[in-house]
Structure formats: structure tokens, C-alpha cells
């Protein structure tokens, strides 16, 4: 990890996730003159104002023109700069999808998209500003690394990993404050490797983004209330996904629940399901997320509760899966 990070959970409670990104970007800007920042009239919302103040000549606000921003970034990257582009996830993944695909991914340029207001985190703005399809879109773009950090600490690690790894990146972060999962940045973050937040043998919850904290809360409760040992994996890197951790979860716990603030079609749940099916090993499986519908308007936490991707929803899902009688399947032992 670059930069000798000193942020801790205290910063994480005082700073919004995007603010931590903004500070990480300034840190990168100081160390690397080729780092530039772009936004499409969302400098304040995406919290990259500090970079703008410190490096006005390396900051470009292209106005409300996401398609142009992506093309401009591609041109800059081709010429040797390392552009960090920030706008809302919905616009980064859909409004500028052709530019993201053609200019950044096809050309395989060294540009980093930091997409904010992901999932339903900008809940009150309604579905025009929810990003419920971005993981599905970005996951299918070749050359693109896709990360959905669990909190501010992990956002810092993801941004640094993006700088240190050549090629295009898509990092989706939330609007506002995230519940702090990690006490600091030094917990062994590794690109493409899930973090085992807690160990367990009864069931594995594989989550990303703000759902990891919720999954951990749920697992904590279920251990006390139901005596269950639940493994929680923070699958921050959606692509390339940690196949090994998924297959291990199948073998060790025989039950998997995925949780994401995203449509259950094409996102984390789909990515995990693909690995499970290809492994040839069966397991009980449930995908929590947005069930292929536009989400309601409301506070993020209320929407998460409505969607069943908060701790309560996850607890209910775990109990449901634990009740399933697939273990009576006579073939199971053979498979194992």
C-alpha cells in the first residue's frame, strides 16, 4: 500500500466516504504529477474540491457532459496522464457507457473512474439517481477492474490499488457516510481477494459495499441468538472475482447468501453464482439485493430495510436458508 496511510475509523466517522476519496486523491496528486482529476459539474458532490484547490491546473470540470469527460480522460491517459474521473455511478455506467467501453476499456487506458452515489445511496433522489445496474454493466466490460468498497477505509485502499495497477478501474462508492467496518486501512486489503470479515462454518454471506457492514451485524446477532457460525466475506473486487474464496465457501459452509445494493441480475450475486455453478459443487444459494425493480424513494437505510439488504433482512434470509432441508440430499456427501 502506498503513501503511509494514517486514516482510522475516527476519520471514517467524521468524513463521508467520498471525502476520504477526495483526500486520497490529493495525496496521490502530491506524490504524482501525472495524476489529474475530472468531473462533470459534480466537484462538490463527489468531494474532489480539495484536489481542485491544490492543483487547479490539473483539475478539469467539463460541465454536465459525461460522455465528453470519458473521452477527454481517454485522450489524457493516452498521452501519459493518470486521470481520475468522478461523477454519479448511474451516469458513469450508463450515460457514458459507450465511452467507458470504447475509449477506456477497449483502448485499455490507465484511467480510474470513481463513481459516487452508487446503489440506492442517493435514495431520496429517486431512480434517476440510483445506480442499480452499474455492476452488471461494468462487470461485462473487458479490461475493466470493478471494485465496490465496504467503507471509507476500503475506499482509500481501493483508490491506492487503482493508482498502483495499470489499466481502467471502476470504483463505486456511496453518497454520504458509510458505517465503518474497518478500524483502519491496514487490514490486508488485496485486489481481487475477498476479506474474511468473520469466520464461520454454517453459512457464508458474501457481500459488497455497505451491505458488508449489515452482513456482519446480522452474523453477530445470529451467533448470539441462534448459535450460528456465519462466515462473512467482503467481496470488494467484483471483477476479477475471488473464485477461490467462493469455492471454499461452498465446500466449507454449503450455504451462500449474497447481498448487494444493486439489481440481483448481473451484479455480485450473479458473479458469485457463476463461480458456484462452474465449480460443479452444489450449495444452498440466495441472492439479496434489488429484485429487478426500481427502488422506492427514501433514506438509504430505509430503502435497504425495504429491500431486505439491511441486518434484519439478512437475518431473515439466513434463517430461511438454514431451514432448507437440502442437507438431507443423499448425494450431498458424495459431492463433498
Amino acid at each position: 500500500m502506498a503513501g503511509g496511510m494514517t486514516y482510522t475509523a475516527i476519520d471514517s466517522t467524521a468524513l463521508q466516504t467520498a471525502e476520504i476519496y477526495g483526500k486520497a486523491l490529493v495525496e496521490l496528486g502530491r506524490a504524482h504529477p501525472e495524476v489529474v482529476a475530472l468531473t462533470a459539474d459534480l466537484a462538490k458532490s463527489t468531494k474532489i474540491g480539495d484536489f481542485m484547490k491544490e492543483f487547479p491546473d490539473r483539475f478539469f470540470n467539463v460541465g454536465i457532459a459525461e460522455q465528453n469527460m470519458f473521452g477527454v480522460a481517454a485522450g489524457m491517459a493516452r498521452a501519459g496522464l493518470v486521470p481520475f474521473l468522478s461523477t454519479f455511478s448511474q451516469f458513469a455506467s450508463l450515460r457514458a457507457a459507450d465511452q467507458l467501453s470504447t475509449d477506456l476499456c477497449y483502448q485499455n487506458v490507465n484511467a480510474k473512474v470513481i463513481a459516487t452515489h452508487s446503489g440506492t445511496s442517493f435514495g431520496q433522489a429517486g431512480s434517476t439517481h440510483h445506480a442499480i445496474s452499474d455492476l452488471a454493466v461494468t462487470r461485462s466490460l473487458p479490461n475493466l477492474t470493478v471494485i465496490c468498497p465496504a467503507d471509507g477505509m476500503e475506499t482509500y485502499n481501493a483508490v491506492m490499488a487503482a493508482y498502483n495497477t495499470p489499466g481502467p478501474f471502476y470504483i463505486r462508492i456511496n453518497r454520504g457516510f458509510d458505517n465503518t467496518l474497518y478500524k483502519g486501512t491496514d487490514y490486508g486489503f488485496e485486489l481481487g481477494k475477498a476479506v474474511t470479515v468473520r469466520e464461520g462454518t454454517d453459512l457464508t454471506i458474501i457481500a459488497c459495499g455497505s451491505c458488508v457492514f449489515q452482513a456482519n451485524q446480522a452474523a453477530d446477532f445470529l451467533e448470539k441468538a441462534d448459535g450460528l457460525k456465519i462466515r462473512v466475506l467482503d467481496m470488494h473486487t467484483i471483477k476479477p472475482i475471488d473464485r477461490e474464496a467462493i469455492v471454499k465457501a461452498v465446500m466449507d459452509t454449503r450455504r451462500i447468501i449474497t447481498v448487494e445494493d444493486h439489481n440481483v441480475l448481473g451484479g455480485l450475486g450473479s458473479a458469485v453464482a457463476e463461480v458456484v455453478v462452474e465449480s460443479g459443487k452444489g450449495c444452498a444459494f440466495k441472492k439479496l439485493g434489488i429484485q429487478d425493480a426500481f427502488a422506492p424513494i427514501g433514506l438509504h437505510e430505509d430503502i435497504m430495510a425495504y429491500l431486505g439488504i439491511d441486518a434484519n433482512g439478512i437475518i431473515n434470509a439466513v434463517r430461511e436458508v438454514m431451514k432448507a432441508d437440502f442437507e438431507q440430499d443423499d448425494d450431498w456427501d458424495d459431492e463433498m
Partner: protein
Amino acid sequence: MPLSKQEWLALEKKAHELRRLTLDTTYWAGSGHIGGGLSVLDIMTVLYHKYMHIRVDEPQWEDRDRFILSKGHAGIAYAPVLCDLGFNDKEMLKTFNLSGSKMGMHLDSNKVVGVDASTGSLGHGMSIAVGTALAARVLGKGYKTFVVLGDGECDEGSNWEAAMSAAHYKLTNMISFVDRNRCMIDGRTEDVMSLEPFCAKWEAFGFIVKEIDGNNIRELCEAIDFALANETDKPVMIVCNTLKGCGIDFIEDNYLWHYGAFDDEKYEKAIAALEASYAKRVERAEKEGA
């Protein structure tokens, strides 16, 4: 510097060779975007053979001038330009569009040496050019960025986002062209989606606009000289009135030849047409050149 007669004739000869190579590539490939390839060819010939600072033996030279063919379907003419310069083996042209080739109709900058941007999806090139030009400013480099759009391509709104930003950032190190051949796949530009008043649109977006005959080598050189000498803070757009299929009389100015194929008979006829066209152009250069 004014174009000497000798230089003019040399550029005509090069343009003629490249037209023939474009025709041959289309013939080898079985078909191709010959219409828009031939309309834009004089722009590329003049840029690559008179103005651009490039190093064939060092394609990624960081101080090189950049060329971005936003109308990427003209790859069938761009590939011959790059092969003729020696960036890629000329034999590669015989594989154009064939399975397993490095060269498809829209050139991939990671496969074809000398290509500065992978284009094809329209309305992307000018944004990339803006980024390249801004990067020169950030990095303190003096290279120029040249970008060529198709006129039909200008239906795409993203071009106008890019245009706004080029003017906003005062990108005088970027020189833009539109290959105004007035044709697109489904018809004539003014019938499919009106572009006029076209020059006024670019002016309104903050450009200095030069409107020229884009198949006239001397007018092209004068316009580029003008753009390079530009001391205002406005970027220059050179609107090049061109002929689709320029040089092959029986396909000229015909939108049905946006994409076409030549059988042996048509191929022979096209070769003769190119020769006749070249003779006329040489005659004009001899007469008007100084």
C-alpha cells in the same frame, strides 16, 4: 509557408498512390467504406506528408503530433496511409477485414501501429482529441492534435459537448476538420438530418471556421497554415467540402457508395478513373502552382 508547385505535385502523387492503395485494399477485402475513405484521403495525405511530426521508427514518441480519425470507418483509407509510411507492413493490407487480421474496418490502436485512438463508434474522437490537447498543456509539450470528424457523425450530440470544451479550454493546439461529403449511409446529410447552417454552428460553439475544398491540396495547406499561425485563443475548425468517393467518377457524391464492393470489371474501371482524376489534378497543380 506557401505550397510550392513541386511540393503540390509531390502531394498529389502521394494522394494518388494512397487512393490506389485504398481501392486495392477494398478490392482485397471484398468490400469497404470506400466512399468516405476517398473523401477524407487528401486531408490525411497532407497532414501525414507535410505537417505532422512523427517518427516511424518510434511510433510512441511522446512529442509526436497526434492524429485522431473520429470517423473511424475510414480505416480503409487510414490503414494504407500508415502502411505506406512504414508503421505497418504493407502486406497487412491484403488481410484487411479478414478473419484473424490485425486490421478490421475500424482500426484498433492496440493492434495497428501509428493509430492514436481506437475509433468506430461515432462522436468519440473530438473528446479524445480534447484530452490529448489538454494533456499537452499539463505536460508542457508542444505537440499538435489533429482530429477529423465526418459530417454525418456530427449528428451525435457528444461532438458538441467536445466542441464546447475545446473552446472553453481555448485549445489552439488542436486543429479540427470535418469531412463534409454531405453523404451518410441512409442518404444525403441534409435529407437525413439537416446540419446547415453548419459553419455557423461551429462558429457559435466558439471556433474560428475555415471552409475550403477538402479535396484541393493547396486549399488544405493554406487552411492548415492558417490554423497553425492562429494567435487568437479560439480553436480552428476546417470544414472541408469534399466528394464522397473522390477520384472514382462513377461512385462520386453517391451515398450508396458509403460502403461498396468492386468486382473485377468495376475494379479495372475504378483504376482507370483514378488515373484520369490524377491527370486532371496534376494539370491543375501545374497550371495554378507557383
